[in-house]
């Protein structure tokens, strides 16, 4: 971000700003944008779709977006895996942050568990009501 502030202080146009940005920044913006887009798509599906299965798909899309965001914050240009091995002792500066990767693995497992529980509940609901439409399942106040 150092270059960006320098460019802005020189009063150059947006085009110069765009070209002066590091590719790392571009990739980062791309990853963040994609993940936020995925979260919004998922949220849209959860809030507007009337089918139980589509709601669960929406939840999974939100999870996917969040996992991408989580991986994105650990990104380093030309980074390597955070593993120490003989001959790569000087590669510490280029190692990607291992914490988000550990977090994303945990989050994936949790997401899997929640999706499985949700689908089993859908089976129960289908047996009870014989439909997947949320409008027809309203014995309780939604």
């Amino acid at each position, binding site marked *: 971000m150092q270059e960006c502030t320098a460019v802005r202080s020189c009063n150059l146009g947006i085009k110069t700003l765009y070209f002066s940005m590091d590719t790392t920044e571009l990739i980062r913006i791309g990853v963040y944008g994609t993940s936020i887009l995925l979260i919004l798509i998922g949220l849209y599906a*959860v809030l507007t779709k009337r089918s139980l299965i589509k709601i669960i798909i929406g*939840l999974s899309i939100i999870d996917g977006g969040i996992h991408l965001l*989580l991986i994105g*914050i650990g990104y380093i240009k030309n980074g390597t895996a955070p593993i120490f091995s003989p001959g790569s002792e000087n590669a510490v500066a280029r190692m990607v942050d291992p*914490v988000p990767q550990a977090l994303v693995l945990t989050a994936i497992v949790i997401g899997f568990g*929640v999706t499985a*529980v949700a689908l089993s509940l859908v089976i129960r609901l289908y047996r009870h009501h014989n439909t997947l439409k949320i409008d027809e*399942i309203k014995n309780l*106040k939604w």
Partner: protein
Amino acid sequence: MVGSPVLLIAIPLLAAFLIPLLGMVWKESVRIIPGLVLAYLTFLSASLYIEVINTDTIVEIIAGWRPPWGINLVFSPLTGFLTTIMTFMGFIVWLYSYRFKRNVEFEAAKKYFIFLMLLVAGSVGIVITGDIFNQFVFIEIVGISAYALTAFYTGRDSAEAAFKYLIMGSLSASALLIAIIIIYSQLGTLNMAQIAANIDNMNPYYRIIAMIFFIIGIGVEAEIFPLNGWAPDAYTEAPGPVGGAFSGIVAKAGIYAMVRMMFTLFDIEGPMKILIVIGLITLIVAETSALRQEKLKRMLAYSSIGQMGLVLVAFGMGTKAGVFAALFLMLNHAITKPMLFLSGSFLTFNTTEKYIKQITGMAKKMPVVSIIFVLGALAITGFPPFSGFWSKMAFLSAAADENLLFIMATILIISIFEVVYYFRVINRLFFFEYDDKISIEPHKPGFNGMIALFVLAFIVLMIGFYPSSVTGFIDLAADDLMNTHQYIDKVLQLGQTIIQ
């Protein structure tokens, strides 16, 4: 030293894993093991708590990674206080449900006890962990076991309630994860003490966004207003003791997570208007909804939400007296609301609807259970000399110290609402004739359930007549919560540590 805090999480998780295996050998073990585990947890938690009060906060390091790198567990006067309440209530819920589906359905009972273990493990984990991502994992453990317990009965609308809970729960967990990502990307740490020490270096916009996501993320378990739509349905559709477990264990963990986040992580000085506003809205909406409920458990659920709002308002005052009142309210609610749920569950035994009119005149058939229900109702509405009186008194004097007259007026008006809807039930119980057509067949309460209710009733009376027996502990817990610097120092510089 009797053990270490990590056992409070590890043992119930191990038990949940072992129950189905041992159940194959000896069916009764499915019921006995959870009881032994919960009794041991209560003992361990209480003895650690006494040790912590007499000496110093225990900071336990997991797997040898010192804070801020590894996960640490913090057993302080505050977390010890809550953990002891939660494990004890877990034991009471177990005692009540010992004969649950006995000789009827083995598989169902097995699942019930497994999820009860997971619920306790997750709730204790939320309270004693010192790492925000770890807290997220425990919130998900509580969430998944709570969805499963809500959907316990087939043939009722329980799957619908559970699905509703699941949608809200997993959306809010996503929000919590986003908040954790924001904090990690800004501060590069997940340790609560480290975050609290560095929070001033964070860009204020990111700080506010992270805080909003945190409130959404934790709000579902803490039952705050727009996120509590699941609660009345889940409390109604889940088996009786589970309602007690939700109000006595899960809601407490949720409130703790919320308060720890507000007081320690984001360290907002002075009265926290946002908590007061959230709490007041929750309180007013829930108590007015409770007025027009026709189902007993739904009414109790709304009352539970209202009490959580009251607790948040008390925390929101931000003063020592306010925090003291809030913790006192949490203690009383943790004991009284399960008492109401468990006795109410005896009164409406084995009915699917649980309408209030179905218990008309039951006092003549089940006098002891009815009297315990009345005791709970009087305690929660704040009649002297029961426990609720002292906590409401502490709340009002804390509000008076801060000159918050509007809040005092609101609480007093809301108390009238509470009296109205509880006395409507008491009126039906005691002053109506038993009628075969409306009322349900009275059910003889089990011996173990009666012991559980008597223990709770004894505690309510004890706190009512001798409030000084608990106020000392609450005072220490309140001090612990207020002193953020002490928390940071204890965790990062390590007072009394156990390296596993």
